């Protein structure tokens, strides 16, 4: 296998269950109810096979991964393989004792999300009283001597709080602050009108984040992830389809990204039935958008095609209905007007009410 196609990161979505109901959740909207989660043994095998393929980093995520009772065991298994393991959590429901077990098992980094700078704003988005508990969890992480990433998903209602978010992260002694603008897929696409910021909001907060990054170098890493809707050119989504990432969904589908199974007409395999190596090299879903042969114009002759690998297939599908089309966030895309319209709506003022992640809405669709 060439280095061109080597997975470095395994994203293990341990469960879609979550006590929070964030209206920008990246989990697929129809799938929140799915049961049939992989058992401990299968996950441990997945970790082993992933490491064998070249994976060095593991993100334990969900849903809410700490709802898995076997998380300690999974962390220990990952540690045995010397994987760099990052727990991506809301911090709910966690005890200090259990966090200590995670540390003892060899967890490398804890990433806790808050939704805003105070309980009122944060709990409104989470759909659950959780802010104060989350801060307590952050304190435990640092008390136990573990590296802490604070993650805040940004949107039009909290973008203007970036300076205060930085101050909060400093107060919590976070090692890393991830200011991640909402990417408009999954629940976030359902709520786009209520979440998409204006360009002015975005630029102002970007400047604040850049200044903080400079000021805090050596103390705290500050990351600012711009939403594709304002970048003119798409991101290299997942560093290119089936190039660097393996995502395994709670029920065992092996995917190039966490939303790939929402694309129609693609076949993805289950890790219960085939080895990761067989899926990585042989699955038709993984091969569908590798390389350049699938690219339409203007991508195929674009000098950026080796930089962005054609952008996001899920975005192309969910905005235009064609998964093989040019990512509409690209200024060169024939469908770019869709993104311009969305940006125009962001300027139009009064946003509609948020629709919260729920099984009920998912079932009604």
């Amino acid at each position: 296998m060439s280095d061109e196609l080597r997975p470095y990161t395994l994203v293990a979505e341990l469960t879609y269950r979550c006590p929070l109901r964030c209206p920008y959740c990246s989990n697929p909207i129809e799938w929140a109810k799915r049961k049939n989660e992989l058992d401990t043994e299968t996950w441990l095998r997945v970790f082993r096979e992933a490491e064998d393929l070249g994976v060095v980093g593991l993100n334990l995520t969900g849903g809410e991964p700490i709802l898995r009772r076997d998380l300690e065991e999974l962390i220990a298994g990952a540690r045995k393989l010397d994987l760099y393991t990052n727990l991506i959590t809301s911090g709910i429901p966690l005890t200090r004792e259990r966090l200590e077990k995670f540390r003892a098992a060899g967890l490398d980094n804890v990433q806790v999300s808050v939704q805003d700078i105070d309980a009122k704003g944060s709990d409104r988005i989470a759909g659950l009283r959780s802010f104060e508990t989350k801060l307590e969890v952050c304190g435990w992480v640092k008390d136990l001597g573990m590296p802490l990433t604070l993650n805040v998903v940004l949107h039009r209602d909290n973008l203007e709080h970036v300076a205060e978010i930085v101050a909060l992260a400093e107060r919590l002694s976070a090692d890393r602050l991830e200011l991640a603008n909402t990417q408009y897929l999954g629940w976030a696409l359902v709520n786009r009108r209520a979440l998409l910021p204006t360009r002015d909001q975005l630029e102002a907060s970007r400047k604040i984040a850049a200044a903080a990054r400079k000021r805090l170098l050596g103390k705290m890493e500050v990351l600012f992830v711009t939403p594709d809707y304002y970048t003119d050119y798409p991101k290299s989504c997942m560093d290119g389809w089936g190039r660097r990432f393996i995502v395994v969904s709670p029920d065992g589908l092996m995917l190039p990204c966490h939303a790939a199974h929402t694309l129609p007409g693609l076949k993805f395999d289950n890790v219960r039935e085939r080895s990761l190596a067989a899926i990585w090299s042989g699955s038709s879903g993984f091969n569908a958008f590798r390389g350049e042969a699938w690219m339409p114009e203007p991508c195929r002759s674009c000098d950026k095609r080796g930089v962005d690998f054609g952008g996001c297939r899920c975005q192309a599908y969910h905005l235009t209905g064609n998964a093989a089309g040019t990512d509409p966030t690209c200024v060169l895309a024939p469908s770019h007007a869709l993104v311009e319209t969305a940006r125009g709506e962001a300027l139009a003022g009064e946003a509609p009410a948020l629709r919260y992640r729920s099984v009920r809405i998912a079932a009604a669709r």
Partner: protein
Amino acid sequence: MISADTRPRIASKARLRYDRKTGRTMLLYPEKGLVLNPTAAEIAKLCTGEHSVAAIVTQLASQYGKDAAAIESEVMKFLSSLAERGLLQEAN
């Protein structure tokens, strides 16, 4: 700023890992990683907060039998690139 007296320490969120696919050393941190060349790997292993930049240069110069000035420029270049990525922790 990094000087000869600085005792560099890799940020606690990052750790080194041997990559058996390439034989290289990798520096891993949340969501990212760097593949280090052999000299960079040697430098990184010495960034524990105990050794000064001057001591690291001396040790590597004798280890590789190279000119200290050449090693020093390599060390400074690598450490600055780590610092820019937020991968060096300030000494307490």
